């Protein structure tokens, strides 16, 4: 699972007010190289929750993203390369996503998070 997917998922357990961002417990992280697409990155940037992305990247061991980002940075090739790597090339392969309010763990196996809720959580 890419961190871009992490950036759009939230915990939807009954009673939870703010299920975003899910915390990441990383047991295994893999890198898969994909083509660099600056237009895509410029386009997706305003839709990203930056703080959540930085935290997620650090949780999987990548510390190259700045704490804060503004659109002016999109002119920097370095910045775009780091963003590309964090959003699209790092995959959480094994581990868990954890609801920030309840601590409920959603396991991630073979890169697939299991977001199914139990009956009493719906």
């Amino acid at each position: 699972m890419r961190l871009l997917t992490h950036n759009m998922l939230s915990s939807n357990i009954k009673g939870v007010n703010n299920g975003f961002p899910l915390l990441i417990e990383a047991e295994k992280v893999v890198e898969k190289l994909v083509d660099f697409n600056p237009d895509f990155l410029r386009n997706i940037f305003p839709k990203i929750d930056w703080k959540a992305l930085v935290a997620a990247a650090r949780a999987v061991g990548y510390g190259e993203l700045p704490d804060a980002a503004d659109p002016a940075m999109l002119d920097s090739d370095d910045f775009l390369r780091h963003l590309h790597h964090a959003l699209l090339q790092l995959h959480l392969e094994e581990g868990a996503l954890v609801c920030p309010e309840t601590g409920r763990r959603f396991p991630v196996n073979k890169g697939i998070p299991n977001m199914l809720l139990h009956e009493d959580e719906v």
Partner: protein
Amino acid sequence: MASNTPKTDDDADAKLGSGCLYIKVSMEGAPYLRKVDLKTYGSYAELSSALEKMFSCFTIGNVSTNPILNLFGSRMIDWQCGSNAVPSRDGLSESRLMDLLHGAEYVLTYEDKDGDWMLVGDVPWEMFTGSCKRLRIMKSSDAIGLENSFGDLTDKVVADFGCGCGTLGLAAALLGAEHVVGLEIDSQSLEIASINADDLELDADFVQCDIMNLGWRGPIVDTVVMNPPFGTRKKGADMDFLSVALKIASQAVYSLHKTTTRDHVKRTALRDYNAKSAELRYDLPQLYKFHKKKEVDIAVDLWRFVPRKI
């Protein structure tokens, strides 16, 4: 299915009572039509190689990597082994579409007696020659129905709702989607979807979830593609999916629904689900007929909805 002998009376006019069965063949991008006599061929393989020779001059550049028409060659082998494509869940036969994705640049389709465009290779050869009115060689991407999609896929974030084996989402990835997320409740389907993605050397994320209970953050998804369950267990499940899709997508929703519910789908999408527009995509053959029981096909429509920006 036991007897494949063409019915003499019904098809008399199509066959002209002679030993020949000439039909027209067209190919996308070719400037003229050809005719072939189906009676001179004894199998799909023979027809395939004959058409390949006939139209090879229009496929220069593709031939080396993707031999034209090898696709339905492979489907035909499936057929002869008796392993008819088994529909997954109550949706379309995913394996047929996976064949399309794995296959060549072109696929062979035909117009049957009822005027429906069908993918060649699903029925025994004799049954095929008995109902084929004409042939068309079309681009695989057109056959899937997602080409010419108004820029809804290229460089976009695409979610495949109820992705099953991943077919539609992977098709989107092949057509240039930058990030694809397949959402599916069934873990076995997801395993197959992962394998399919690896086979096609495509990057796609998969999430196991119930579409109706997934939490989303932000307007990241541009386009939703889906072949939703039509609800043999729960009626109207496809409409529940559509409701969520129109909330999540910012640009477009491509969705398959039963033709019999056409009016209902359109009315509900526009009135209750805040769709700005709902249009049918007519330009594809009946690849999406799904088999509820043997012999029973159900016609479905491919829709393109545009969500209203709030």
